[in-house]
């Protein structure tokens, strides 16, 4: 296979290769990485906070490309769906952009009355010497809301570093409202971004178990809830990549323990409920969880049987942002008879990749931070029938004449929870079984 030499150790075939899968490396210059930047990471995490103002300080691109880009829903305010930029011009690049930033903040706060504001500094802001912190401090005093600078120049690392920056920003909000009393049997749901309304399902499950929810961070997020998040008894963290850091910081500062969970697939979803009941050591919670799972799974299994029957023997390639999600996907696919033959992520770490390797079948290719040319070769070599990924992977699948299933931030279909599992099966079925692929079989 044709892989850049420097990337050789970021690819492993289980059962064939001896080396560990290397990760946490910067992308190679000149490779067409599917990764984004620090700013992207920070924005992904903070943006679902719907009653906050998100102002991007920099030239227009970063704001224009992220306008309403993800399907993070809000049950109330919608400020997060607007794209605000200071749209720096040459004049500001030469003479500084502080004045522009200040006027922009004031006018936007007056117009939209947000509960807090995040100011993202992108690539050139540091270079032109703007003191963003000072501007935020001043306007904050004037307007009486928290204005939190998010230092996110794209070059300062990868998307993952952006997650960390976002977690630091959240820490500045948490603990700024309410007493320090812990609410018994209460949780924060961390790391679900309410894509296609998934969070509503989860909240519903936990409430049925009798668990109280303090804050959802950041899906359907509200500033005041987040400010009181320190009152929760337990943090439930999904998606190891983006928000474990926040949970760790909250543990250190507020002594709130956390559990890592995943909501994709029946197994992981059910475990996410049981674990909470186990943690609170509550029989009533556990009974309700068991009843809920029995009910949901009972409804689901017969419906899934049809898909499993049809899909058995199909092969999938997975390339997603976080490795934790990839792991759930392997399991969820297995449940509907689909075997994973290629699996990778943009930002997985050592531990994730270890688990991934353990649950993978022999011969599966595992990969970190791949690019279109590599991915194409893997998919072909392993004769995958479908590819699961994001928008940037879609044309790869389609040009190779195989199915595609969007498991990224723009999808319009809830894939978490039990309902989500059924949606997922339908999605995979809709693409793997479509008759149009009779025309894509070429013999070269």
């Amino acid at each position, binding site marked *: 296979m044709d892989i850049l030499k420097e990337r050789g150790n970021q690819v492993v075939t289980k059962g064939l290769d001896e080396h560990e899968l290397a990760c946490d490396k910067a992308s190679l210059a*000149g490779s067409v990485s599917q990764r984004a930047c620090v700013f*992207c990471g920070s924005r992904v995490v903070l943006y679902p906070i719907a009653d906050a103002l998100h102002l991007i300080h*920099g030239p227009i691109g970063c704001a224009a490309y992220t306008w309403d880009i993800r399907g993070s829903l809000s049950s109330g305010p919608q400020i997060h769906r607007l794209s605000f930029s200071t749209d*720096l011009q040459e004049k500001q690049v030469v003479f500084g952009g502080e004045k522009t930033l200040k006027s922009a903040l004031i006018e936007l706060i007056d117009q939209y009355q947000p509960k807090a504001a995040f100011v993202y500094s992108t690539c050139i802001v540091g270079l032109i010497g703007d003191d963003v912190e000072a501007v935020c401090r001043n306007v904050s005093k004037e307007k009486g809301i928290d204005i939190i600078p998010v230092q996110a120049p794209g070059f300062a690392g990868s998307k993952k570093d952006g997650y960390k920056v976002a977690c630091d920003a959240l820490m500045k909000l948490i603990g700024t409202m309410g007493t320090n009393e812990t609410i018994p049997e209460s949780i924060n749901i961390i790391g679900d971004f309410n894509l296609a309304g998934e969070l509503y399902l989860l909240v519903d499950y936990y409430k049925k178990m009798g668990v109280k929810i303090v804050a959802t961070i950041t899906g359907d997020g509200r500033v005041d809830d987040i400010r009181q998040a320190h009152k929760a008894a337990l943090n439930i963290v999904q998606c190891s990549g983006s928000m474990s850091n926040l949970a760790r910081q909250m543990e250190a500062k507020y002594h709130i323990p956390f559990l890592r969970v995943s909501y994709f697939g029946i197994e992981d979803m059910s475990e996410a409920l049981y674990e909470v009941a186990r943690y609170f050591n509550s029989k009533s919670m556990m009974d309700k969880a068991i009843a809920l799972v029995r009910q949901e799974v009972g409804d689901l299994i017969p419906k899934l049987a049809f898909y499993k029957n049809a899909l058995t023997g199909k092969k999938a390639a997975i390339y997603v942002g976080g490795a934790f999600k990839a792991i759930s996907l392997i399991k969820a696919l297995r449940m509907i008879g689909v075997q994973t033959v290629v699996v990778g992520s943009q930002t997985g770490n050592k531990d994730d990749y270890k688990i991934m390797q353990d649950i993978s079948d022999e011969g599966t290719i595992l990969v970190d931070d791949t690019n279109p040319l590599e991915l194409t070769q893997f998919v072909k070599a392993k004769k995958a029938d479908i590819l699961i990924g994001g928008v940037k992977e879609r044309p790869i699948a389609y040009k190779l004449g195989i199915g595609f299933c969007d498991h990224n931030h723009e999808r319009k279909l809830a894939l978490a929870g039990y309902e989500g599992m059924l949606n997922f099966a339908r999605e995979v079925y809709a693409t793997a079984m479509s008759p149009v692929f009779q025309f894509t079989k070429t013999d070269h």
Partner: protein
Amino acid sequence: MEALKEKAFVSTRNACKLCTPLGASIAYKGIAGCVPLIHGSQGCATYIRRYLISHYKEPVDIASTNFSEESAIFGGQSNLFAALNNITKQYKPEIIGIATTCLSETIGDDMQAIIQHYQAQNTLPDSPQLTYVSTPSFKGTHANGYHDTVLALVKRFAAFTETNNAINLLPGFLSTADLRHLKEIMRDCGLPSIMLPDYSDTLDNEYNGSYEKVPEGGTSIEELVAAGSSRASIELGHILNHATSKESAGTYLEKNFSIPRFNLPIPIGIKASDEFFTILQRLSGAAMPQKYLKQRGRLVDAYVDGHKYVFGKKAIVYGEEDFVLSMVGFLEEIGLETVLCASGGGSGLLKKMISEKVNPRQDIMVRDDFDFEDIAVACRDLKPDLMIGNSKGYYIARELGIPLIRVGFPIHDRLGGQRIRHVGYEGTHELFEKIANALIEHMQEHSPVGYKYM
């Protein structure tokens, strides 16, 4: 309408423009064997790719020099070198088209020097050609990036050898179907042409079962060179890159190679298409081919059939400056009243060009450097019947409960947005019927009766 000020906010709210390297990348995609390389941090390239993939529904490989903290301090030379080596190894391109970013421009990387330095070290026979364009986004929009790149390409390659019979066609930022249609017209008129750029295949490829590293198609380097020896240039669009440069590819060729330049609006509408065909006839010395006479006739027929449904309706038009300029011209000739013509571009020329080139029946409110929230606010007073522009205005149309006619770039919420045809008699015909039908449908759906006839 004096209540409506120029852009009301210091900040930009829901931008009606994109950044310069995006335009550069599209132009580079129209060069055969070219891999675009964006010199800056990784995010810019990834976002631009994502944006383009959602519109073209095609793979769009754009490499990045992936700046790190060190490059931001010490300059991007070593990253650029590494990137050029890696792209050469993986893609084996004929040419690498480099576009700078806000970051590399602010740091002050001297691209010319860096590239010369690289070339001095790399003299292998199969190393790709290199070219670059300066595209800081704090100057101009994606439209400037596009035209500046076309200019940079002719500056880099065009040379005089001996006069050939070809016509340079500089189409501007059009859809892939537009580019194909223009080529067809040139062919039918018996005019050999060099179209620059030509992404009609590379960004709208047929299925062939493989992920092509560098898709086939595009203007070849030989053609770029030969562009300096053509007998005429047709440059579509009047505003071009004038926000950032006085010179365009067409004026450069005219000045340096004495190639006569015909500057026309993008041919949307009968008048603009007539103008275009008139020049073609002059260049070919032959009459308009029968095929196009028929197309024109059919278009007039369609105008007559549908005139009542569009006449007097109020439209809001937005997008790139040259695009809206032509669109307004077209709407004028069918009796649709443009109540606001807006662009995120800021050449300062739009208003003047509309009154000069279109000379509308009544005063049109023209706003450049506008954003979508400005448009949304304006709509509350203007009460338009429809909006005409890219898909990003959908949220406003939805709020107003009026149809949005999707044209231009980007179309992120429909299939086939990359191949909407706007130009020529046939393109105009399709547009006209799309507009009329949208209005008819709107009427039908809001009628208590639900008529079966129009």
